[in-house]
């Protein structure tokens, strides 16, 4: 996952900017495409990486953006989120558990070292080793040999020859190949392991760009990337380099775009959301993001267990007028949710049976609530916990008001001062109310929105949801190597979620961006980051 933390407002993922899907424009190549000067350097906004630039230790957008530019993984995701081979020649499996990965020949790191099967295997082993304390170590948990309790080698990885290695997973997981474009799976040159600290300061990759010499990372200011002449893959840079300027506030970045000091901006400050489209016209984009927002009502809360809980959750879901909140509170910068994933993900459907529970219907809501009252009468206040530093108060209050009016119960928000505080209470299960939850996909796959959150015992299953039927469907889906067939299983699994509502879906975020007159071919990827390598710049 890439955590986005841009100033106070965006401490929570939810604060990523958003607009309606209907206003969706894709940053399509205009007629002057290709007229750009291939030596002009594109400038864009970023934020100071929160960790050293080591692929397995970066889990936020500031560092992720840089790593994606200077490294090439086995695959990358094109604008639609579809996987395309980058360093990989082929990734094959018969049973979704054993994979044979072949690399393209003669690939090099920017220091001249060859990219071999060991570059991947060693990097993954480094990332997975407990004592290396890598933030993204959990990405390797399904590979055989992985352990959270002790240092252990990933025995499921085996180097066959220089350009071939095999992967054995603990269980079949058909979406494993889809994950391989995530930064945690990037290769590392041998020189990295000699001194990882120094490497994190001056990383050497195999991607379309490379650092502009030692010390190109000017902390808190910017990082300068130049084109890597050795990169010979599908993401070859169409410009002369990339300067990522670090901003502490979105406002400063936006002012620089207006003032002509910035070429591409991937976040519009709240204050400019209503005007930026008029100002930049076809040089702006509003596009769905792989971010899902919800709130979770755990089973263990009084009145929310068993059949009674199911009825109450459905009543709450039907009592919320999502359309009204996304219009009034977010002025159209969120889209009402129709499922538990995101519209940018392959396999998404807004007509999954059972999704009617997300449609506003006050009468039906009252009826369901009354049915639950028949089992055990409601008392007390319904509360939704949120972090007050993330700009959530407005929508939480709106939801609480709708519940008050439509269900006739006492409802309110329960603010926690900081993000850290509310997450701590959620993680150690001391929280005694419903709470805000959100998910930003690590890789474009339906499973990524379902397995890590709602599977029994899953890491981010903050509501301790458990349904064997749901688990079984996920497992079946993961065992299918045909993606469409697998997605069908995942959609069936969602039907169960609509009945149980382990989290109450609210809306999807969208990304807003704009760019200057001097650049062309600006397109935003599935993960809301512009595809910098294809941007052309005139002058």
């Amino acid at each position, binding site marked *: 996952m890439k955590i986005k933390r841009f100033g106070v407002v965006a401490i929570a993922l939810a604060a990523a900017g958003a607009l309606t899907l209907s206003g969706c424009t894709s940053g399509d190549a205009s007629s002057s495409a290709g007229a750009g000067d291939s030596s002009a350097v594109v400038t864009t906004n970023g934020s100071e990486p929160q960790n*050293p630039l080591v692929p397995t230790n970066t889990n936020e957008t500031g560092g992720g953006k840089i790593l994606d530019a200077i490294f090439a993984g086995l695959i990358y995701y094109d604008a639609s989120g579809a996987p395309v081979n980058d360093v990989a020649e082929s990734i094959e499996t018969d049973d979704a558990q054993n994979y044979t990965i072949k690399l393209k020949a003669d690939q090099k790191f920017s220091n001249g070292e060859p990219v071999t099967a060991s570059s991947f295997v060693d990097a993954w082993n480094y990332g997975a080793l407990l004592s290396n304390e890598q933030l993204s170590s959990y990405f390797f948990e399904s590979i055989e040999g992985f352990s959270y309790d002790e240092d252990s080698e990933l025995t499921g990885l085996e180097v066959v020859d220089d350009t071939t290695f095999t992967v054995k997973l603990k269980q079949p997981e058909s979406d494993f190949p889809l994950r391989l474009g995530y930064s945690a799976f990037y290769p590392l040159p041998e020189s990295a392991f000699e001194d990882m600290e120094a490497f994190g300061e001056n990383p050497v990759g195999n991607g379309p760009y490379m650092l502009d010499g030692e010390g190109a990372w000017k902390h808190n200011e910017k990082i300068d990337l130049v084109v890597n002449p050795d990169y010979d893959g599908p993401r070859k840079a169409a410009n002369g380099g990339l300067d990522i300027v670090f901003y*502490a506030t979105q406002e400063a970045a936006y002012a620089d775009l207006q003032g002509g000091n910035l070429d591409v901006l991937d976040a519009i400050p709240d204050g400019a959301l209503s005007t930026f489209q008029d100002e930049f016209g076809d040089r702006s984009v509003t596009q769905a993001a792989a971010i899902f927002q919800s709130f979770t009502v755990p089973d263990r809360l009084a009145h929310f267990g068993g059949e009674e809980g199911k009825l109450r959750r459905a009543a709450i879901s039907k009592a919320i007028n999502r359309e009204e909140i996304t219009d009034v509170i977010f002025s159209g910068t969120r889209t009402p949710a129709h499922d538990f994933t995101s519209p940018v993900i392959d396999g998404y459907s807004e007509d999954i049976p059972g999704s009617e529970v997300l449609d506003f219907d006050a009468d039906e809501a009252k009826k369901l609530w009354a049915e639950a009252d028949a089992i055990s009468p409601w008392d007390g206040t319904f509360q939704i916990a949120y972090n007050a530093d993330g700009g959530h108060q407005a929508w939480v209050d709106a939801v609480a008001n709708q519940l008050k009016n439509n269900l006739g119960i006492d409802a309110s928000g329960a603010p926690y001062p900081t993000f850290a505080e509310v997450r701590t209470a959620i993680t150690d299960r001391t929280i005694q109310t419903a709470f805000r939850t959100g998910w930003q996909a690590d890789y474009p796959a339906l499973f990524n929105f379902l397995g890590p959150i709602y599977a029994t015992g899953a890491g981010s299953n903050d509501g301790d949801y458990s349904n064997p039927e749901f688990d079984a469907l996920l497992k079946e889906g993961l065992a299918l190597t045909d993606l469409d067939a697998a997605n069908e299983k995942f959609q069936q699994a969602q039907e169960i979620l609509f009945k149980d509502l382990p989290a109450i879906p609210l809306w999807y975020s969208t990304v807003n961006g704009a760019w200057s007159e001097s650049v062309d071919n600006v397109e935003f990827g599935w993960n809301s980051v512009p595809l910098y390598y294809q941007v052309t710049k005139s002058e």
Partner: protein
Amino acid sequence: MAGYIVRRLLQAIPVLLGTTFLIYYMVFAMPGDPIVALFGDKTPPPQVLDQLRERYHLDQPFIVQYLIFLGNIFRGDLGTSFSGQPVSEILATTFPVTLRLAVIAVFFEMVFGISVGLISGLRKGGIFDASALVVSLILISLPIFVVAFVAQYIFGIQLGWFRTTVGPGAPTQDLILPALVLATISFAQIVRLTRASVIDTDTQDFVRTAASKGLSRTRIVPVHILRNSLIPVVTYLAVDFGVLMVGATVTEGIFNVPGVGRTLYQAIIRGEGPTVVSFVTVMVLIYLVVNLLVDLLYAVLDPRIRYAK
């Protein structure tokens, strides 16, 4: 004098210890686990959390954490940020930027504030005095971020006279606009202070004596009136300089100045305890030194003031 300085420096030690202890305690007492927050909305396995807590000594009791911190400080080790950069290095890159910004801002305050205040004081009750009063009132009542955004929009985006934000390496010409914005807050205070002081001095006996001796007004104003009126103003400027040195968070954020204020703000947002405490420690130190210099400056400007041996 020397004895006085030594005594003041010795007094700084308990102040430093006390402030670092308080700050460290406050960071420690902040509710919520920064390690959990590192993972955003996702929940990592507990073993991973434990490992990370151990690395940052967060599994130790408060007093142990504080002593480890203090021990490191004495060995000159200010710790490293989450991104692996030594805090001392961050200090070394951010303070010079903030220092330049503060110097330029104080320069503007001085030039504009003192000249306007002097003229106002000499022409008390005139048109100039009245308009200066109104303008300074407006500036005092405007929040700094309003001034900053308006200045950025008009001079940066519309007129294009200045770069909208501070460019790489923080070149001095880019710092002029943020410095002017910073200067507006204190400008008004300095005008008022100078004006009052000038009016007061103007009625002093020695000014009348000078005039009756036949000295020209052009000599009396700079030498007799201005010089004697400057004592409170200089004090104020020095204190203001100290304030600016410890960072102008809002202005630095708006103009993206890679200085102390912006960096500290980010560290707080990210819950980087060691960075926050080290920064604040250095800030306290700077503030103490500036205050000492101000006190010494009194004696230089006004020979009547003597410090106890």
